[in-house]
Each structure stands twice: as structure tokens, then as C-alpha cells.
């Protein structure tokens, strides 16, 4: 009698599509990643329900800390030099907007002085950056 040999089954995991899956995952993570911008000062922004969106990278960010200290994206600046520094940054790239990141607790008088400096730099508009408060 002829005994049939059992055919051996090799268990293999199909890996042919692994490269495609890896590529798709890579594209997904690349497209959904948000780079957190470095903050010059630690501030607590005031809350508001209204407001318009703007791209942080397309704005000159002016920070006003809780003790009235002023800083740009990268460095601290004395109050009396804010207008001059802004004007030179705007001259380099006039398409940039100005966004004010002022601490909610700082006296309005300090913010008004910064706004005067922004005006002195001939900026057409400024955005008062806020945190989203529930509602609208």
C-alpha cells in the first residue's frame, strides 16, 4: 500500500504590503504633526469666545509677561525699543502680521504702551491673542 505523505504547511506572515503600510503611516504622521512653537515667556492668555484664527508662524509674536517684561519670538526687548525692533522686522518681511501675547493679569497700561510702540512701527493691525472660552 502506498502511504501518502502529508504535505507540510509552512506558516508565513505575508510581508509584501508591509512597506506600503509603513509609507501610509509615515505620510499620516507627517501630515498631522503640529510643531509646538517655542514660547519666549510663560503667559496666561485672557479668554474670549469671539476671535479670528491666524497662523502663528506668519506673525511677529510680541510677548508681555505678568510683570510687564516684553519679549519677541526669540529675545527680551526693553519697552522703549519695541517699536524700532518691530519696524525693522516688518521692513524685512512686510507680509507678517503682529500678534500680542499678553498675560491676562498685566495692567492694561503696560499693554497700551506696547500698542503705542506697535503703532509707532506703522503696523496696520495687531491681533490680541486669546484662549478659547466655551461658547461661540
Amino acid at each position, binding site marked *: 500500500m502506498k502511504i501518502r505523505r502529508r504535505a507540510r504547511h509552512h506558516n508565513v506572515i505575508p510581508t509584501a504590503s508591509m512597506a506600503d503600510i509603513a509609507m501610509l503611516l509615515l*505620510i499620516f504622521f*507627517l*501630515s*498631522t*504633526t*503640529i*510643531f*509646538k*512653537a517655542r514660547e519666549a515667556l510663560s503667559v496666561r492668555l*485672557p*479668554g*474670549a*469666545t*469671539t*476671535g*479670528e*484664527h*491666524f*497662523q*502663528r*508662524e*506668519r*506673525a511677529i509674536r510680541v510677548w*508681555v509677561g505678568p510683570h510687564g517684561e516684553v519679549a519677541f519670538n526669540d529675545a527680551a526687548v526693553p519697552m522703549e525699543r519695541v517699536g524700532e525692533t518691530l519696524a525693522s522686522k516688518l521692513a524685512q518681511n512686510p507680509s507678517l502680521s503682529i*500678534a*500680542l501675547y*499678553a*498675560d*491676562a*493679569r*498685566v*495692567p*492694561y*497700561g*503696560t*499693554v*497700551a504702551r506696547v*500698542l*503705542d510702540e*506697535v*503703532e509707532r512701527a*506703522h*503696523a*496696520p*493691525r*495687531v*491681533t*490680541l*491673542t*486669546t484662549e*478659547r*472660552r466655551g461658547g*461661540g
Partner: protein
Amino acid sequence: MFRAAGLCKSFGALEVARGISLELPRPGEAPLVFPAAKTSHAVVSADQSVTLDGVAVPMEALGGAVRMKLREKPDLLLVLSVDPRAPYASLVSALDQVKLAGARQVSIQTGEAP
């Protein structure tokens, strides 16, 4: 590597923030003159108390009070004065309330609050 970085930028990896936009006076522009008949004054004091045309209003009710004024005068011009000692948050809250009420013409008065 460079392609990946470019792809990141083009796919909107730029962070978005939100805020209240203010238009600043142009250089040499004459100071605004407000016709008294269609102007309302909102004043925020150092203790964050609010008055609208001399009547005390809680900050959270400012929007409603402005809305009532807008019904009477749709072309209302609102002048907002904030005491320099008041916290900056009170300016933002007042602007927020006024914007929520639908006021289109809002001016921030500079200098000492009356």
C-alpha cells in the same frame, strides 16, 4: 529628508492661534471725532467695574446692554475706555462682549479713562 520637511509645511503643520484683531491708526491720520448722537461710552475702571453711558453694568451683561443700544441705533459707535490699572483681561472681556453683541464700530480710547 528635505522632501519630508516640505511635505510637513504644505500639509498645514503650522500652528494656528486665535485672537481679536484691532486696526491701528495710520501715520498722520487725524484723531477720530465721534458724533455724540450715535456714540456710547463703555468705561472699565481699575476695579474692573463697568459702566455703559454712566450706568453700571456687570461685565458679563455688557454684551446684552450693547445689543439693546444697537436696536435703538444700528449705526452705533462704541467707545471703550479702560483704566490703565485694570488688568488686560478686562479689556479683552469687554471687547469680547461688544463683539458678541454685534457692534461693528468699536474704538478704544487711549489715555486716562474718564
